[in-house]
């Protein structure tokens, strides 16, 4: 098992959280071992958070409040991410949102997406078999992939196809006929108000042949049949690996993960523990190799500046983050299609790359700026610099700031260049955070660090 030190902890936190503050890092290192931290903190259970509003239990009616409520729920999730501490439940909630995809382009009522989101939160590291069954009759999913419209006499293949292709098996592990037959087994379910309801007369009450086996299968039987195939465990583990380790999977290691997954009857927690304590996870090859998703970029930046949930202004700060993450192509509750966000290089195009740069510039520029309309409670640059013990030693301050913001090693030349940016017209010996103009020099350094492509990596 890897040694539990600063470098290990930074890597683990940067992958399992939406960024981290120095306090989070200290807290993690206060645990004696890696396993201790994972068991007692990272994967510890927490109460379900209060909902984004009383409306979550309202029977859906067309009252044109959906847009505002989707917004409120999005901000609510941002807040849960920002206040996640050192627990990866929100990261896993987003993982399942991006795995069992539904989105507001078809799910008009945020109530349904709220129910689904909480299912993912409750099942963050629960049992995958149960989760897949629950998702199959989840109201938002019945709407998103047309299950509610499908009946024995009028089957629609949409859910049956995607559950095999994208949620459990992957292309090549089923036939077109398996899809057609499974579509029949999934019939009978509709959405009534906030609930999924079963109507026997809409169910295809006949024998179906799926993967060569025949029976009068229902939705939960299809999930069981799927999970009998070894490809299923590998498929889900590959997805976890791509999210938390590297987007090009190591198939030998995936097989080991899948073995753990199957031996534990598809319990997710043991396979996460196995992954996060493996030498593979901490291999130097992968350190700093993950391109941050837009939520990691935005929430992570706020965390690095020690901004807390209480200091965020819901009516001005979250709308800014909403607009920016939308421009960076990640709008929560609205994945681009049923495949979800692909991640890694897909996040980066000529436009999104430079948008990331303008975003970090913007946040830094609010520091100490009384006229700024966002992030009014973010530290002023001098106070922020002084939270580092090294504040008055320019060389060490650059090192510390680089260490906080980057998971990637940078060259001596680049550090020298950053130092020159911090010093501006001052010489090293004269550096002090009390020098007139230090405020702008510190901001220049922060902007430069966050403009480095290296900043985009976790």
């Amino acid at each position, binding site marked *: 098992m890897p040694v539990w030190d600063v470098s290990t902890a930074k890597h683990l936190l940067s992958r399992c959280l939406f960024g981290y503050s120095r306090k989070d890092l200290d807290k993690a290192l206060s645990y004696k071992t890696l396993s201790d931290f994972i068991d007692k903190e990272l994967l510890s259970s927490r109460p379900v958070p209060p909902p984004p509003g009383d409306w979550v239990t309202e029977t859906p009616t067309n009252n044109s409040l959906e847009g505002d409520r989707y917004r409120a729920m999005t901000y609510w999730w941002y807040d849960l991410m920002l206040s996640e501490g050192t627990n990866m439940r929100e990261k896993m909630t987003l993982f399942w949102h991006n795995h069992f995809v539904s989105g507001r382009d078809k799910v008009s009522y945020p109530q349904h997406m709220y129910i689904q989101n909480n299912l993912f939160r409750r099942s963050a590291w629960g049992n995958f078999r149960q989760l897949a069954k629950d998702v199959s009759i989840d109201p938002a999913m019945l709407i998103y992939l*047309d299950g509610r*419209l*499908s*009946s024995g*006499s*009028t*089957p*629609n*293949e*949409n859910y049956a*196809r995607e559950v095999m*292709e*994208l949620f459990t098996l992957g*292309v090549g592990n089923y036939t*077109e006929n398996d899809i057609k037959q499974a579509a029949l087994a999934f019939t009978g379910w509709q959405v009534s108000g906030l609930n999924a309801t079963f109507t026997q007369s809409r169910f295809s009450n006949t024998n179906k042949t799926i993967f060569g086996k025949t029976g009068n299968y229902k939705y939960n039987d299809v999930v069981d049949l799927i999970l009998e195939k070894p490809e299923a465990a590998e498929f889900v583990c590959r997805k976890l690996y791509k999210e938390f380790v*590297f987007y*090009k999977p190591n198939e030998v290691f995936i097989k080991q993960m899948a073995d753990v997954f199957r031996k534990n009857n598809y319990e997710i927690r043991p396979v996460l523990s196995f992954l996060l304590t493996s030498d593979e996870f901490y291999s*130097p*090859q*992968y*350190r*700093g*190799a993950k*391109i941050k998703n837009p939520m990691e970029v935005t929430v992570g930046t706020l965390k690095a500046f020690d901004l807390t949930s209480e200091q965020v202004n819901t009516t001005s700060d979250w709308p800014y983050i909403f607009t920016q993450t939308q*421009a960076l*192509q990640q709008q929560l509750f609205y994945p*681009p*299609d*049923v*495949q979800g966000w692909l991640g*890694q*290089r*897909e996040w*980066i*195009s*000529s*436009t*999104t*790359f*430079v*948008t990331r*740069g*303008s975003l970090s*510039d913007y946040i830094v520029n609010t520091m100490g700026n009384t006229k700024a309309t966002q992030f009014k409670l973010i530290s002023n640059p001098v106070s922020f610099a002084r939270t580092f013990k090294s504040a008055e030693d320019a060389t060490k301050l650059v090192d510390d700031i680089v260490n906080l913001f980057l998971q*990637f*090693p940078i*060259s001596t*030349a*680049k550090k020298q*260049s*950053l130092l020159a*940016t911090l010093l501006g017209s001052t010489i090293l010996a004269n550096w002090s955070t009390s020098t007139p103009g230090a405020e702008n020099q510190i901001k220049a350094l922060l*902007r*430069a660090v966050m*403009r*480095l*492509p*290296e900043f*985009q*990596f976790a």
Partner: protein
Amino acid sequence: MGGTSVKAFAHNPFALDMADTNGKILVLVQLAGGNDGLNTVIPYENPLYYNKRANIAIKKEDALVLNSQMGLNPGMAAFKELYDKGKLTVVQNVGYANPNRSHFRSTDIWLTGSDAADVWDEGWVGRYLTKLYPGFPLQIPQDPMAIQLGSVESLLIQTDLGSTGVVFSNPTNFYNLVTGTTIDNEPVPDTLAGEELRFMRQIATQSVAYSGIIKQKWDKSAKNLYTYPTTSLASQLKIVGELIGGGLQTPVYLTTIGGFDTHANQVVANATNTGTHATLLRTVADAVTAFQKDLEKRGLADKVVVMTFSEFGRRVSQNGTMGTDHGSAAPLFVIGSGVRGGILGRNPVLSDLDGNGDIKFEYDFRQVYSSILQDHLGVESSTIQSIMGGKTFSTLPIFRQSTSAYIATSQEFTFEQSGANPFTTYTTIVYSLKKSMYVRISLFDMMGREVGTIKEGTMPAGVYSEVIEGSYWMPGPYFCAMKCDAGQKVIRISKA
């Protein structure tokens, strides 16, 4: 940071001029989600079509008649107009062997040009561009090699050497965002992480190198020569038109419209000429037609061709939810002043479907790519073969100046009508010559009086088309005769 800021990047020192291109431009319109081909080009005389699609078929009287068997979806009036003018070619039943019905797999197949069984990680346009600019990425041309309107970069323009394109939605916003970005040529660590860093730096370099020239050409381009619709696709094409008008030499553009995954309620019950799918098709037809008219006003229409594509068509039989599930082959459209017009291919054979109830493909999608590369972009056949992974695909006579071995018969020449018949304003005739010869095509009234000459002269071997404008003709039948060194043929055309 020792890098170069965008403001200092007035001229790219590595820039090559664009002399390597023939000045022609390809604009791709991706219909994401799987466009229902059977409700796009309607086989309105086929009872099987109405039998298998009892609730969602487009009625015969609603179809915009292309010929005696095929009509366009009623949402596509703008395309019907282009078709009548010979500026739109329909290619029927385009697909590939062993079709994959996953959106994502099939999209990748279309974008890379691979066989169904192969997984390639380079886009076909990316491979074309790296052949066109062999110095890439060490040397990059002065104008972007490809531009994608949008935010998430498509596999289409990705290569093992890096991205060959820039991606943005608005030239000014893009330029402003790039300010402050730096170029960094330091070596990367020799790890997997280092490879990812290299990728990101290359994107940064492209942004810095190109945001200036894109804005410069865009700024100087005349705006609003033609009024586009206000849809997203039309806005994308409007910017493409303005960039081309401003003199940007970029040879390939990609635009996208989504929403074609019509599993449910693709038409309105009992009013199948309306609904989601008709609206989508109207959006496409109106946007592309506006783009064509814009280019005509700019005098640049000869340079540009538009091709639509989608990852697959949809199941022949409707599903139970007023929609269609994933299918296979489908028609696509090629639009431009240089196309031959008319229809290539037959109506889908609905009595002979594959085991899954889907249409069998007639043309491989790479035949269309190869035709565009050869006859529009002027790429040599050996290069096309290399772009297509060593395979050769016979080309199709999509373009007027086609060198395709079309109508590979033993005949010395062919002569057919391909446009609307009867027609109201325009129709199109197509002819092919096996070898160079003298040709004269004339028009006669029913009394046998010659009323006009359409073409006269010695023509090289090839396939040609001519548009006949007949808006002022008296309604009724006419004869069109082709005389050439190899013989003659007369066809009868009707003005409605």
